């Protein structure tokens, strides 16, 4: 599904609300399953790294207890915060326009969902982040490979890329808006710029520091430039690429909000400005919570890919 703002104000579509709820209702009956799958994969990861010297059954049990522990410990502070928030908003005289209660924030979400805006905003923001991230990652990988592998490439590109990276992200926004219009292109471009640099930096650095002894061994066994790249150099930098991608994703969310704050009529960043202008603190809280949840969710997705990659190449 593709969204953009050329259609003007977002249209409330009945289908978008059902779409927003359907995955949740599909998840409910099997709510115990995903965490079990996660435990299993955590365990297989741990054992493939030789952490578990005990038998499979003992190891699995241990891993399950470990992951349950981790979940419990990880939940302590969020639950504590929620309780503090509840008490502060309900049992004190802090006015609602400064601190809405959790119930009011949920109410704001339901209200937006009924207008068909919630799903629209979420989907367009996610779509922008993922598109910008994908483009930025590819560009970053390509530039990183050139700078990391070629001396001439490094000498030519490093200074200019360093200068571009030094420009604060928001400085691009007015220029991009004028050159590229207020549509999707400037936002995606901005996000791509933000996502490209962490990938570029980590990949270029890692390629330059691939163990020269391994590269020489590859050369000794007859690997030419390209086979050397695919057999030795790229696999050696997989861990660096993965951590670069994770950084890039975080950057992509950062640049998304920057883009939507300044030039947008849809999306979670727009929800932030719009709510600020209308004094809707409840919606501000909602937008911040959603950004946190979505950021964490996309990061977890990359994490799953990371584990698969590191298992193969790490």
């Amino acid at each position, binding site marked *: 599904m593709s969204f953009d703002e050329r259609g003007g104000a977002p249209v409330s579509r009945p289908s978008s609300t059902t779409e927003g709820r359907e995955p949740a209702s599909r998840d409910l009956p099997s709510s115990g399953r995903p965490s079990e799958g996660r435990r299993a994969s955590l365990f297989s990861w741990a054992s493939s790294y030789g952490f578990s010297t005990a038998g499979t059954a003992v190891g699995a049990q241990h891993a399950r207890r470990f992951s349950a522990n981790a979940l419990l410990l990880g939940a302590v502070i969020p639950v504590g915060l929620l309780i503090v928030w509840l008490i502060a908003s309900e049992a004190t005289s802090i006015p609602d326009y400064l601190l809405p209660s959790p119930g009011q924030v949920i109410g704001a979400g339901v209200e937006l969902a009924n207008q068909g805006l919630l799903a629209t905003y979420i989907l367009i923001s996610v779509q922008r982040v993922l598109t910008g991230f994908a483009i930025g990652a590819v560009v970053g990988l390509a530039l990183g490979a050139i700078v990391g592998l070629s001396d001439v490439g490094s000498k030519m590109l490093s200074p200019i890329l360093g200068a571009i990276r030094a420009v604060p992200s928001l400085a691009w926004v007015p220029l991009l808006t004028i050159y590229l219009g207020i549509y999707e292109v400037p936002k995606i471009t901005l996000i791509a710029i933000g996502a490209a640099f962490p990938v570029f930096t980590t990949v270029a650095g890692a390629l330059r520091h691939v163990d020269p002894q*391994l590269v020489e061994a590859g050369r*000794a*066994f007859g690997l030419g430039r390209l086979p050397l790249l695919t057999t030795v150099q790229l*696999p050696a930098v997989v861990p660096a690429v993965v951590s670069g991608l994770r950084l890039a994703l975080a950057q992509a969310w950062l640049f998304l909000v920057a883009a939507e704050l300044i030039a947008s009529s849809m999306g979670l960043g727009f929800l932030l400005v719009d709510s600020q202008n209308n004094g809707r603190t409840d919606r501000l809280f909602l937008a911040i919570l959603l950004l946190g949840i979505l950021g964490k969710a996309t990061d977890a997705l990359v994490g799953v890919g990371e584990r698969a990659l590191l298992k*193969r190449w790490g």
Partner: protein
Amino acid sequence: MTSTAPAAAPTARAAATPALPVALNGVGRAFPGAAGQPERLVLRDVELKIAPGEIVALLGPSGCGKSTLLRQISGLDRPTSGTLTIDGTRVAPADQRTAVAFQEPRLLPWRSVARNIELGLPRGTDRAAGRARVAELLELVQLSHAAQLKPRQISGGMAQRVSLARALARNPGVLLLDEPFGALDALTRLTMQDLLVDIHRVEPTTIVLVTHDVDEALALADRVVLLGTRFDRPGATISRILEVPGARPRDRASTVLARLRAQLLDALGVPSHHDR
């Protein structure tokens, strides 16, 4: 049936590559000094002719330039003076007629032991033949049980055997071994030396073996080439060449070898405590 190959012989054999002769003519290597320092001469005037199928041991103290000399023969490094030829033609960069087992195992950490050995197969080996050859080599270096392990899961000695198997996979005309048994315990080292003797009998390729172990040199080599530096000149060169008599495998305790050991230790500046 005389046409069937004897199955019992150790089989490190694929398409047999002929053993190749090597010639070093006045080889020298100087490294540029650090900023402001003069260049440093490591090797000078190395003259050596190695016959096809011969085993030559390069012996010398640590840091005297043994690895550097081996790198000249492999074409991974170029001499600053003199020339090297293999089979009459100049050594090419990373010369594919040679195969090296480096002083460090240098295995790709993300590949299994078997897949690391695969890297040594000559380009264009077909898959089935390659797999069979790798299995054969794994057996030869006694690592069949470790085929699927990753380098970080095996010991240093096992890693060095993988590195040796990878070099053998090439069927090289000249096999270059840089202290291949250095990380092995004393017992495994003797086993591996015997293994190398077996391999060479089956596949008599030219071998240049760097070692600082006098006994290893005497057990394996046709000739021991001593590298050393004269007190009045920079740069190591050949200070002595010893022919080692006797067919391999040799009696390690023989009196002939004992006398040669004493000579070599003397030349290396170590008192041999040997009664003459």
